[in-house]
């Protein structure tokens, strides 16, 4: 018990210490070598901007975070639905496979300018759709894999019980696929934030974090640009950690 506790303390402490050391070295380097802010601002300058511009960082985070969340939900719902249909209807699976494969290699943010013209430059719809598309693929692929992973012994058991295929699906297939679904969701959560953010670089409304990073950089306010980057990191971490927690809950009783 004590050993486990010590291990946990070290697991948390070690990266914290490393982070502090890196920040101190960074600060010393910027001051010591008199590095210009447009090359690399110091951590204290970024921190200063972060507290001063906290209001706009927070509102930018809300806008980008909301786009990512809508994308995550939309992509997840469609990913799950498509996966279920693919698992049930073989023809559908065969028809969608090439499309999904093609979709997986397309850099989806590249669609941003097209979608902005489609939905109007004043709407966030394009960004949400981009996030949804990025989310769709890992959720679809993982859920489908989970639905196909019924263990032979469970299949035999369901046959021995002479249950209907719907009962078997509900009893064995769906619960067995849940851990896979949540793994897909965890992978997708980071993609949702990244896509929603990068999509802002290509135009559209100006309220989000991505747009704020580009405009701060354009006005040579580099420390502020980094402060917005810091905000995006926090946003990405929040999405990741929440979906990671969901995954942990979903997989807590499955054999590793």
């Amino acid at each position, binding site marked *: 018990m004590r050993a486990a506790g010590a291990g946990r303390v070290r697991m948390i402490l070690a990266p914290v210490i490393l982070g502090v050391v890196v920040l101190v070295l960074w600060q010393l380097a910027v001051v010591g070598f008199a590095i210009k802010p447009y090359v690399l601002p110091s951590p204290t300058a970024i921190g200063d901007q972060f507290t001063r511009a906290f209001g706009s960082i927070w509102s930018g985070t809300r806008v980008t975070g909301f786009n990512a969340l809508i994308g995550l939900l939309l992509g997840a719902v469609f990913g799950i639905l498509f996966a279920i249909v693919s698992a049930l209807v073989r023809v559908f699976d065969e028809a969608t496979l090439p499309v999904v494969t093609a979709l997986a290699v397309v850099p989806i943010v590249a669609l941003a300018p097209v979608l902005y013209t489609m939905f109007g430059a004043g709407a966030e719809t394009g960004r949400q759709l981009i996030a949804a598309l990025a989310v769709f693929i890992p959720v679809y692929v993982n859920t489908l894999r989970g639905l196909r992973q019924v263990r032979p012994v469970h299949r035999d058991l369901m046959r021995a019980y002479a249950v209907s295929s719907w*009962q078997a699906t509900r*009893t064995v297939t769906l619960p067995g696929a849940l851990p896979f679904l949540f793994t897909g969701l965890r992978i997708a959560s980071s993609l949702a934030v990244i896509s929603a953010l990068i999509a802002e670089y290509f135009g559209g409304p100006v309220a989000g974090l991505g747009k704020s990073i580009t405009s701060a950089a354009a006005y040579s306010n580099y420390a502020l640009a980094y402060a917005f980057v810091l905000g995006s990191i926090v946003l990405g971490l929040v999405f990741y950690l929440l979906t990671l927690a969901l995954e942990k809950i979903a997989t807590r009783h499955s054999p590793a």
Partner: protein
Amino acid sequence: MSNAVTVSAASKIFPLARGKRVVALEAIDLTVAPGEFVSLIGPSGCGKSTLLRLIADLDQPTAGRIEVFGKSAKQARIDQDYGIAFQQAGLLPWRTVTGNIELPLELHGIGKRARRARAAELLALVGLSDFADRYPDQLSGGMQQRVAIARSLAESPELLLMDEPFGALDEMTRERMQNELVRLCAETGAAVVFVTHSIPEAVFLSDRVVVMSPRPGRILEIVPVGLGSAGNRDDGLREASGFFAAVKAVREALHGVPAEEVRADSAAGVPSGAPGAEVLYASEAPAPRGLETR
């Protein structure tokens, strides 16, 4: 009353790629009386599991007929006339121990209270009452297998089909589980078809041992064991002379010759422990010394 199981002239052929095929079972005739314990034994690939799957209607025979309690195997499956346990416990990891035992009852529409009561009864029977609310990943392999056996008994079947249920367990746990199974069978009066590749296990448990040979799977011999009614069997039996005589008979049937030098399956199954370690030490330690003197 009709037999629990009647297999007549059953064969099973699995087609392979490029027109090849494997004859898994050929012309099998076998009957199992109600309440009788019959083991199927033989080397890997002799079709013993396939035969069990045919009786369970998990596979269909290529030719021949299989009846369970006078009905077709399919009808018996639909009527839930048998309980089944596999080598893997096959528990659902997201359900508690109770939830797993209740599974067949739940699927067949038994009410919640009746389910709870039956699960509690079965948990007591397999000695796991304290683990009712645990999840399978919190149990040892032996305990998981006991849950699987409790689940197979849930609907009080007249026939139990068991496919090497103790195959993955260590020898100690295995012997304890065998004792428990003998007791359970005495209490429930169910007929059992039990697949195993351990001679002592087959002899200890069975009224009759069906010895099979591979390629094609055939019945070589049916050895009547007759070590007395299930209720009288305990660990003492494992050292009785009748037990050894039956082990010898099965072994000879299995190998086709009087086999003094052939070791029983159980010898290979000795769990790794102190004695094994000693042997290793004794055989390895002198070697370096021998090299030194030379």
